Every structure is written in C-alpha cells, then in structure tokens.
C-alpha cells in the first residue's frame, strides 16, 4: 500500500489559476483536511474517484485536467 503512484495532478496550478485559492479553502469545499490536500498535491495520497470528481468540480474542469496517469517503464504492453 506504500507504493509510489503514477497518478500526477495539476491541483497546485489550478489553485493559483483560481485566484490563488488556498489549500484550506479547497479542503473546506470538498470536506477533507488541509493535510489531505497537501498529500494529494505531493503525490503521497491517491484520492478516491468520488473525491477526484469533487476536486474537478470545484475547479470547473474535466477530471483529466486535474489528474493525469503517466505511462511507466514497467507497464505491460
């Protein structure tokens, strides 16, 4: 369960593009702790699909503008 994730995100950039929304503001809007937003931004926690949609909804963008899945070297072809 403590494995690196290939999911990356643009939350930090999106927050700054939305008038420098703070991590605390975003956390309040989706009902999680600020530390969870920090962990997601730093790739230390992958949110559930529902939480991912909630984050995308706050920014008013599609899910794949917030989260990206990078192809790793070890991926099966």
């Amino acid at each position, binding site marked *: *369960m*403590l*494995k*690196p*994730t290939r999911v990356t995100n643009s939350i930090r950039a999106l927050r700054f593009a939305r008038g420098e929304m703070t991590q605390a503001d975003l956390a309040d809007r989706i*009902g*999680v*702790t600020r*530390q*969870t937003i*920090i*962990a997601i931004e*730093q*790739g*230390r*926690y*992958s*949110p*559930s699909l529902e*939480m991912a949609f909630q984050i995308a909804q706050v920014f008013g963008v599609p899910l794949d503008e917030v989260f990206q899945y990078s192809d790793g070297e070890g991926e099966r072809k």
Partner: protein
Amino acid sequence: MTSADMTSEEKNTWVYAVVTFCSYGAYLAIILGRARGIPLTAVHYVGPMLWSIGGAILASILGHVAVGIAWPKDCDKKDQRDREIHQFGEYIGQSFAVIGGVAALVLSMAEVAHFWIANAIYLGFVLSALLGSAAKLVAYRRGFQSC
C-alpha cells in the same frame, strides 16, 4: 514537521504510541526491579499489569482531550484518508495480537506458569499497538496509496 502539518488523527496516533511505549516500559521496569534475586514467575505481576493497562487507557484519553484543547480547530476532523490509514494500521497491527493469542494458547497447553501466559498476551497487545501506530505514522509521512 510541525503540528500544523499533522491532522488530529496523526497527533492522536502519536499520543497512543508514546503512551503505550511508556506504560509498557514502566511495567517492565517494575517487574524486572521486583525480580532481583527471585525467579520471574514468583514476581507479583498482576497489580503492575492492571495499573499499566488502566494507566495507559486513562493517559490516552487525557492525551486525546489535550490534543483537542490545544488544536480545537482540527478536533473531530477526520476524512477518508484518515479512515483508510486507520484501517491500514489496524490491519498491520492485528497480526501481533493474533501472534500473542496463539503464543498464549501454546503456553497454556504446555501448562507453563500464568506469568508467561499473561505476559505473552500483554506483549502481543503492546506490539500490535506499537506496530499499528508505526504503520499509520509512516503512511501519514511517506504517503499512502489505497489498493
């Protein structure tokens, strides 16, 4: 790492781990102190063990109350990540509770002194709590990806 970087659940996990460690350490110090010159199985362990367990429960409750008073804004804020990390820690920790139970079963079948049976169970609970807490703290600090 500052207190602002920690959720109330992480602070409570620290409290639980420290209290468990200290209470078991105090218990061991008392038992080993009483065992000078006499065999361990002759030591009166029941009182210190009950005081250690009771003291740990009380200290944990007081510690959680103190965390709530010191950081009232974060109090009772628990989200999905906290719940997932809690489950992960409990899953890791429960293996030692099972090992303690199995050890006690084997010891009682071998009809060894009650001292060893009680201490095997107690050690199992302590290791379960410590390992579970350590797993949670690592998950909070280094990251946690649910499978």
